[in-house]
């Protein structure tokens, strides 16, 4: 049964997506964070490819290729260039310590799985069990954005969140129309450029990328 093997492979890739989300949450270095983001993009691209192959939908091949190009090559390259220019390679500061974050992460996974259970009952597609995993990785990326103090890890968290959403889209509905996907891809690319400009502006103003400094800007 080829269809069941493809489901097994997609399940395995989904689990790897979740594992990488956890690895990102536990990461102390910005460089490895960006590498993990690239790995997550690769897993995402592979799973899209397998969904495309098993359901015989040609536009998903383009989608997989686009993911590979954008999230495995272009975005990590951009981020690498950014941190080289900003000269921040090591300092990931967290608001709460990493073991506690991991425990909160497990709680989030349980929450997401429970939340997704009734939704996936409605879905008819071959990969409905995966909505929970996609939702969990979205929430984990959100947690990473919340617990990090510096700007670069927050942006990586944002991009990883988009990965989770994209995975939910391909696994649950077999992908959005190609126009929408192109639009999102462009959005993410442009967002990264704008974030890059923001990083430089923040550093110009405060001499650091610590975003708690931004609280000084408000009026009393």
């Amino acid at each position, binding site marked *: 049964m080829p269809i069941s093997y493809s489901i097994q492979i997609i*399940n*395995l890739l989904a*689990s790897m997506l*979740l594992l990488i989300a*956890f690895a990102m949450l536990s990461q102390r270095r910005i460089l490895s964070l960006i590498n993990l983001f690239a790995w997550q993009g690769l897993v995402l691209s592979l799973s899209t490819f397998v969904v495309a192959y098993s359901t015989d939908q040609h536009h998903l091949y383009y989608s997989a290729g686009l993911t590979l190009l954008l999230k495995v090559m272009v975005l990590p390259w951009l981020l690498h260039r950014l941190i080289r220019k900003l000269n921040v390679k090591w300092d990931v500061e967290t608001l709460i310590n990493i*073991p506690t974050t*991991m425990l909160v*992460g497990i709680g989030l996974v349980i929450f997401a799985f429970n939340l997704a259970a009734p939704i996936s009952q409605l879905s008819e597609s071959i990969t409905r*069990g995966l909505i929970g995993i996609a939702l969990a990785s979205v929430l984990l990326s959100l947690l990473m954005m919340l617990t990090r103090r510096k700007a670069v890890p927050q942006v990586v968290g944002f991009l990883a969140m988009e990965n989770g959403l994209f995975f939910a889209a391909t696994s649950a509905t077999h992908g959005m129309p190609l126009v929408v996907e192109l639009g999102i891809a462009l959005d993410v690319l442009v967002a990264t450029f704008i974030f890059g400009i923001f990083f430089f502006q923040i550093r110009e103003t405060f001499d650091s990328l610590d975003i708690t400094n931004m609280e000084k800007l408000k009026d009393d």
Partner: protein
Amino acid sequence: MMTTEQTLGILFQIYQSLLVVLLAPLLTGWVNQCRAWLQNRSGPGVMQPYRTLRKLFHKDAVMAYNASLLFRITPYILFGCMWLAAAIIPIIAVDLPFSPAADVIALVGVFALARVFISLAAMDIGTAFGTLGARREMLVSFLAEPALLMVFFTASLISHSTQLPRIVDALAHHQFVLYPSLAFAGLAFVIVLLAENARIPVDNPSTHLELTMIHEAMILEYSARHLALVEWASSLKLFAYISIGIALFVPYGIAEVGAMVGNWGSALPLAIIALLVKLILAGAALALLEALLAKMRIFRAPEFLGTAFLLAVLGLLIHFLLGA
């Protein structure tokens, strides 16, 4: 009157137990030899643990004058526990007569019993190192044990049984399925194996530097035949852990007593060859892992073992979500 199957089962049980006891130092020697090769040394050869054991058995035992009975009997209890554990695990065949005696939870209990005794014996003499080693051992093991239990639970959920033979049977003889949950459990198990067997990222088995040793600090006061038994028990423990790993994650090629009544002559050599190949590969992989990793600070160990627990719990959750 016993049936052929029962006789064969008992024979196999005895055979497996003897094989394990005799092979365990060889596995340790093989791991050390691989490690020496990876570190560009020529190494002492795979038979070195046997030579060490023989030397130790020929020496006279020295005891601290305030050592109690506990200190004296601990090496025997340790050796007995590890031998019992190795007899429960299906290593060359499933359906052995001894294996229903304990399921995986009891197996974890057997390991815990040995740990309690070695820690108590280490504190019994009253030296600073013994106490220090015992405390560190407890710190590592109380974090490793829940992770190990979670790994077992994941495998039990897949096969609907906590009996190791049933688990192995379910995983080895059914249609091949990719289990993401088992992949997570496998990763967690490797971390637990490294921590429980005093391997490199947590403890260094070849160090005698007081600040870094855990297991060596506990057995510092033992000599001669007692030390030999403790060392042998460590080898047995490593063998037992690797066998559990093989049984849970790569059980292919294991023999079945029931199916072997007629043709044990062909099934048994096949099972032993499969076991030896798997052990050689696992030992080399362990040495490679040890060569690649660096010893971490003792206070990083909880985070390392926390990762194992996290992976095992994730495996459990993914099993519930995906049913696989």
